[in-house]
């Protein structure tokens, strides 16, 4: 089996290219414009666009998960719900506190919060896009009918969100699944490859979860420190304008310096968020999807083994043998089908993961270097001026 060279970019195949060309934030909804370019005969046109909302992405994802045919594939993880609550709250608080700060402070803070809002917006667009691209790149999933409807049908899909009852059903399904998963995982696999993958994924998933949480905390502290530098810069500016002695020049220059360095610090935090935190979050979700695949295979294995036992029993009793035979065959086929595709999927997962980490770690290091050099240059030039003055 040749490992498919799945490019991280997921945009190479000309037969089907999907992207999100536009997005609109409306109160508590985000409307994504899904744009498709395809040479495939299934579609009426070669290029077309539709507007979709988050719920419709979830619907598509869930339809994959529930489709038995796809049991042997890693289902691309669903994008997380767009969450502007925190950002909106901050903007509201700012509006309420407008009277208590100077005009400059208010404008500055407003700009920052708007930038933050924009960043969250861009992120959610990216995550929805990645989901679609993963599907489009998958040799089997890309042919899915629901996927084509999603891409082409230019009316509302009328996908209502799950009502309370359905949500409760989901909840119980998950509980059962987890319990079952533990049972299934306990069954030792004959196949070394899958046994190794099972152990590996379990540990890996937990560690990615931990790393993701810790990286988030680290980045938050970084942002707080940048905010402090912002306030320091403002106060230094006031001091500089008030002071009648020599040192006022110092205050003004340093205030200017800190304005610039704190923008860089904020960028550092933002880049770390994009290249590190988001990477970890994504592989947290993907490794869960891989675990789900292993679970499905494990389930099929257990079913197969049970069917074998049932067959033996039937043969011994000479009762319902045919039925048992068919049942066993079905289970066997199902298991073998899943195993075959699962192996390839897991190999691809590793390839994708390694490529993604490589790309992001390289970009992270390059950006950190760029920002540190920028900071250094600003600091040194300011020091030069100040030292020359004394």
């Amino acid at each position, binding site marked *: 089996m040749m490992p498919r060279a799945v490019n991280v970019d997921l945009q190479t195949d000309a037969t089907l290219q999907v992207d999100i060309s536009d997005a609109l934030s409306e109160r508590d909804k985000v409307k994504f414009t899904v744009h498709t370019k395809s040479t495939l005969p299934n579609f009426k046109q070669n290029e077309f666009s539709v507007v979709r909302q988050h719920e419709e992405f979830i619907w598509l994802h869930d339809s994959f998960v529930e489709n038995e045919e796809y049991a042997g594939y890693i289902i691309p993880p669903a994008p997380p719900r767009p969450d502007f609550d925190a950002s909106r709250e901050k903007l509201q608080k700012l509006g309420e506190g407008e009277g208590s700060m100077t005009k400059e402070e208010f404008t500055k803070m407003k700009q920052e919060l708007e930038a933050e809002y924009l960043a969250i917006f861009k992120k959610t667009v990216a995550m929805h896009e990645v989901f679609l691209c993963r599907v489009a790149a998958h040799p089997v999933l890309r042919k899915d009918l629901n996927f084509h409807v999603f891409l082409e049908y230019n009316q509302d899909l009328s996908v209502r969100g799950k009502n309370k009852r359905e949500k409760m059903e989901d909840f119980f399904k998950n509980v059962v699944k987890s319990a079952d998963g533990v049972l299934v995982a306990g069954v030792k696999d004959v196949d070394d490859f899958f046994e*190794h993958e099972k152990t*590996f994924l379990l*540990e*890996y998933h937990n*560690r*990615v979860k*931990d*790393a993701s949480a*810790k*990286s988030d*905390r*680290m980045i*938050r*502290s*970084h942002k*707080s*420190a940048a905010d*402090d*530098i912002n*306030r*320091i810069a403002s*106060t*230094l500016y*006031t*001091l500089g304008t*008030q*002071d*009648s*002695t*020599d*040192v006022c020049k*110092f*205050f003004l220059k*340093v205030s200017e*310096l800190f304005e610039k*360095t704190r923008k860089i610090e904020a960028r550092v935090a933002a880049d770390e968020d994009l290249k590190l935190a988001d990477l970890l979050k994504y592989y947290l979700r993907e490794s869960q999807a891989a675990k789900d695949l292993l679970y499905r295979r494990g389930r099929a294995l257990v079913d197969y083994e049970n069917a074998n036992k049932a067959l033996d029993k039937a043969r011994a009793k000479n009762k319902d043998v045919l039925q048992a035979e068919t049942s066993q065959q079905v289970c066997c086929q199902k298991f073998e089908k899943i195993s075959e595709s699962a192996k390839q999927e897991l190999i691809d997962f*590793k390839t994708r*993961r*390694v490529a993604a*980490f*490589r790309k992001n*770690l*390289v970009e*992270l*290091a*390059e950006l*950190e*270097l760029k920002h*540190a*050099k920028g*900071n*250094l240059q600003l*600091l*040194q030039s*300011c*020091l030069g001026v*100040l*030292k020359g003055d*004394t």
Partner: protein
Amino acid sequence: MAAEMEPPPLGNAGETDFRELEDGEDLFVSTVTTLEYPEPSSPEPASLPAEDISINSNGPKQKDVSFDDDPEDLFAEATEEVSLDSPEREPILSDGPSPAITPVTPTTMLTPRMDLGAADMFERSLDEIEEDNNGDTFDIHIAVSDPEKVGDGMNAYMGYKVTTKTSMTIFNKNETTVRRRFSDFLGLHSKLASKYLHIGYIVPPAPEKSIVGMTKVKVGKEDLSSAEFVEKRRSALERYLMRTVKHPVLLKDPDVIMFLESSELPRAVSTQALSGAGILRMVNKAADAVNKMTIKMNESDAWFEEKHQQFENLDLQLRKLHASVESLVCHRKELSVNTASFAKSAAMLGNSEDHTALSRALSQLAEVEEKIDRLHQDQAYADFYLFSELLGDYVRLITAVKSVFDQRMKTWSKWQDTQLLLQKKRESEAKLQFANKPDKLQQAKDEIKEVRSTLEGKVEQGEKDFELISKTIRKEVSRFEKERVKDFKAVIIKYLESLVQTQQQLIKYWEAFLPEAKAIA
């Protein structure tokens, strides 16, 4: 306002608030007689300063120092003082009363008073003491080190080693080491404040007490926070002593010299918060605050008005800045902790990664983050000791400056009160002239005349004190501003240099990591 001098009205002698003036006089009555000083008259309610002075009584009095009345001196050294550490000091040192410093245009405030001729020869002003260092340049370095816990339980205390290295001749030796405890420092400050604050000198404030911090140390909690507390205090004590000796007058104060040199120091009990003296201190502070509100001074000197406002603004902004920097220190420490935590997590992730090259790269990432964590720690340390502590020191110093301005107000108020009293006595005297009681008249007239003339003397003194304190404050403020400019410039540069270092290290670390990341295949 001193310029608005009326002929002294008649009045009776009375007891107004001579308290502080009296204390100051006690100290400065030297062997040389001065013609101006009224004798210390009535007993005062014992105030804290008086108490402290009595504790200090074994120390040598200030070397022939007294207030000088020489009008030439008044503004000669007003502002353009040469800085203490500059070598140009040498040629300026002279025995005469007017050093060769460019005079600042004096304000219209004072009309030159008639001087007293002969007295000049023997009296040297505090101004001259400042200039004349017996030929010394300012060369002194004080280090506070080796904090050691002495004793056990709640009576335990921290002892510090104080090492003074100097070539100045006012000290006995070139290098002296003594052991002092925190209350000794507070005691020193208390003495200096009582001697110098009310005549307008900005006495650097001592580091603050901390009941929480000290209790932890006493109880023997050997953790990071109590070690940090001790280090913070040690550093603050060192800065306090250096600031004190940088003041040309305070440097020569016998209490300061004794503090630095003598091996045993009488224990300063009156510094304890809950002692009788402590409570008295609090009461006095409250009384002062009330008085401040009731004194409405006619400020005729725009300089003081302006400076007062400037210091108010500076105070406000420095406090704000201090708060922001403290927040930065806190967040950087947090960042350091979180980075270390992430580093460990990344290492674990690298361990479980089964692709060899990626695993190695993740371990490298963990190492980089660990180094960066230490970098953040160092930077937080610099943030604190360079920037934050300086700001804290200056917030306290400005409180001292403001109190000196308040003292001036008090001096003015005292003078005005005395004048009022004199006025009343004159009126009574005038009334007596026209009274019709011949037998008692002469006796009464004589009495009143005596009281009135004493009062006249006091009014004159009050005016002089006011002029003197105003002059001193101008000088002090100028010196303070110079120091402030120097301090801030130096600290800002040092702080920026620490930031430069951090960035340089960051570049090194990420440059080392980049090829590792690229090597993932």
